């Protein structure tokens, strides 16, 4: 087989056809505007929301503090070792996607996905400068003129501005937002901030402005995954071909009806095709490119209203019902509650409950022991045996705390801290700074006579000096000859 030899590569690679979505008004369009406004408002303004955590911690409500390895989300503070909360969050996010899919198809793609939201925004900017579908097609076909030049330039400039703000807002989640805004304005922000803004400006501009539906069709894995997740019962944006076919004009329908033949409600006005942001024809049935944004429903409903036919020729429905109606059966009622959705919801509830429980009951202090590996034990001049440990105390509270260490497990075991400031009463006390950890060296010494075994289990306790009820326990072993 020679593909290269034929010189006919045009068949294997197709130029993307530019989509010129037509403006539409209606119920689903309003939902999309609302999601867009709320989503963008949250995205752009959330970094400026303050949350008081006391004098020792940042007061930004949502902050990914990479330098100090902390993630703050309102009252929640996550340390690196608690990254499993993100695992839980991701499991829940996946299940929510699955659940949405099982109930009403690609809700995520059509309404919530950033790609959809920003594309919507960019298309409306395009419409503002270049007019609606027809004007845009005309403008693109025109030779270059001043009018075309300024419209195109203004569009791209506005796009770049939005993209720039998008990238700008992103970096605000990684540093104190008001400070960073000031630094960015005066050119004193760290280079990383500028680089990330540049990268995200570029991706936003190219993905939402230029790539658009190509992202969904060729770059995103979700359309492929969701094909495996949907089922016959799920609602999807559906053209009810039982009612629509055969397509015929209003006049033609009157003629056909006069002859006693069947005439469909679809007048083949192609409004559903024109408004589609991915440029497909929903009347071909469910297809990969359909993001199920519902705009064709709005378009069709508008037309049906004008010609005095019932709405809903395109609507949220499923193929089982369409086929049932074709046979003349009663369409089945929609069942959002079924085994699949119950399982998804149950997993979401269980994971959510486990996470909430974990968050509510997690300790504010911690104690880790690392036994010295060489030497495992040391014999002292009086014959007693010493084991050395590295002790890490964790204080997750925003204030300074002191912990008293004690040990049990071997009779006559003496505890001694190296390089720790002496406490007033001589007890082994370790002070730990707010929201941090401290590593100290601990020596345990036991008389040789007390060692009944080569390895004996010991328990180390760290008790909060101020609140005796707050204590953490760690277990290890004491080794001897």
């Amino acid at each position, binding site marked *: *087989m*020679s593909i290269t030899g034929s010189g*006919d590569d045009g*068949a*294997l690679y197709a130029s993307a056809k530019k989509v010129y979505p037509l403006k539409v008004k209606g119920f689903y369009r309003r939902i999309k505007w609302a999601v867009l406004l709320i989503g963008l408002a949250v995205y752009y303004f959330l970094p400026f929301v303050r949350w008081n955590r006391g004098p020792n911690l940042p007061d930004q409500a949502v902050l990914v503090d990479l330098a100090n390895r902390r993630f703050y989300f309102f009252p929640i503070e996550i340390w690196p070792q608690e990254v499993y909360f993100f695992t839980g969050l991701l499991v829940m996010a996946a299940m929510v996607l699955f659940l949405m899919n099982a109930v009403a198809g690609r809700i995520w793609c059509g309404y919530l996905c950033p790609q959809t939201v920003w594309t919507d925004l960019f298309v409306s900017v395009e419409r503002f400068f270049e007019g609606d579908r027809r004007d845009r097609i005309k403008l693109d076909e025109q030779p270059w003129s001043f009018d075309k030049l300024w419209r195109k330039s203004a569009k791209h400039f506005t796009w770049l501005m939005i993209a720039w703000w998008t990238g700008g807002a992103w970096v605000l989640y990684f540093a104190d937002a008001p400070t960073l805004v000031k630094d960015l304005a005066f050119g004193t922000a760290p280079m990383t901030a500028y680089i990330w803004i540049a990268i995200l400006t570029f991706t936003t501009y190219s993905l939402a402005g230029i790539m658009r539906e*190509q992202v969904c069709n060729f770059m995103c894995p979700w359309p492929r995954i969701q094909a495996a997740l949907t089922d016959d019962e799920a609602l999807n944006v559906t053209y009810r071909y039982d009612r629509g076919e055969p397509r015929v004009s209003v006049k033609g329908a009157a003629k056909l009806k006069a002859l006693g033949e069947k005439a469909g409600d679809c007048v083949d006005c192609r409004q559903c095709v024109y408004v589609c942001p991915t440029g497909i024809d929903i009347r071909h049935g469910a297809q990969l490119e359909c993001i199920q944004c519902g705009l064709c429903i709005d378009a069709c409903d508008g037309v049906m209203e004008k010609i005095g036919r019932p709405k809903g020729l395109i609507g949220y429905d499923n193929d089982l019902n369409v086929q049932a109606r074709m046979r003349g059966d009663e369409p089945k009622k929609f069942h959002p509650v079924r085994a699949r959705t119950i399982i998804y919801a149950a997993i979401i509830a269980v994971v959510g409950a486990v996470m909430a429980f974990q968050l509510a009951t997690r300790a504010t202090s911690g104690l880790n022991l690392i036994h010295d590996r060489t030497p495992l034990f040391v014999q002292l*001049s009086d014959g007693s045996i*010493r084991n050395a440990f590295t002790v890490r105390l964790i204080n997750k509270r925003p204030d300074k705390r002191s912990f008293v260490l004690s040990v049990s497990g071997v009779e006559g075991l003496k505890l001694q801290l190296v*390089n720790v400031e002496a406490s007033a009463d001589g007890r082994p006390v370790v002070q730990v700074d707010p929201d941090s950890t401290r590593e100290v060296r601990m020596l345990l010494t036991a008389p040789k006579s007390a060692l009944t075994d080569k390895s004996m289990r010991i328990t180390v306790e760290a008790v909060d000096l101020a609140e005796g009820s707050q204590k953490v326990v760690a277990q290890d072993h004491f080794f001897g000859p």
Partner: protein
Amino acid sequence: MAGHNHDDIDHITGTSTTGHEWDGIKELNTPLPKWWLNLFYACIIWSVGYYVAYPAWPGISSYTKGVLGYSSRADVQVELDALKAQRASAAADLAKADLAAIKADPKMLAVALAQGKAAFGDNCAPCHGIGATGSKGYPNLNDDDWLWGGKLADIYTTLQNGIRSTNNGETRISAMPAFGKDGILKKEEIRTVSNYAVTLAGGKAEAGVDLKAGEKLFAENCASCHGDKGAGNPELGAPNLTDQIWLYGGKIEDVIETVTNSRAGVMPAWNERLDTATIKSLAVYVHSLGGGK
């Protein structure tokens, strides 16, 4: 075979096929977007720029350096220099401060311990072992038994000048006579005094050994350095014989060998190889292992 067949249309999808067929299964022609192909070409063009900008092609004895002059090795050097510069002030502080002040200041202490640990691994671990565990003839630095003293200043002096170091005038020096080899004591006397020495640390003597005679021999030959009670003398590096720690082994045979042939461990002087800050760090580190006095 032609690249694809316009006339061959799949019935179900209405898509043309590529003309490829395997056992009756035909491959549909679903064209890849042109921009995807263009990205591929763009990457090729980008790679050319990359070749020009960065080191790329190997030569016989060298390689193309690239116009940006990038070198990962130079990058490492820059980072190392930056690190050194960053640590310079801490090192200067350590060099100036006296040992007690380093121990008292948590910041300096943290630096000294970290630096000491690293320097120990590089310079001391070959003899004293990782974790300073020591072995026969090489003292364990974790315990509380010190030949030449376990105070910070003692350890620092030992580190600086070494023990029986040949190239240092200040080095710590002492010599135990080889009582057997040099004919000072007879074999039987050595056995007797060795038995006595073992009992000083609570050990059991062999049957039939006259410990009274051993005590006398000890007083005559050993006590001048090891002390009347055998408690040792750090001034002379004479080990404490009453404790449970035996550098060359605490069995009677080991002690007999020590008395017969003598022992004289050597440690290099570090003052010419390591800077003051590093030696101070080492002293503090060793002192903090747990046995420091």
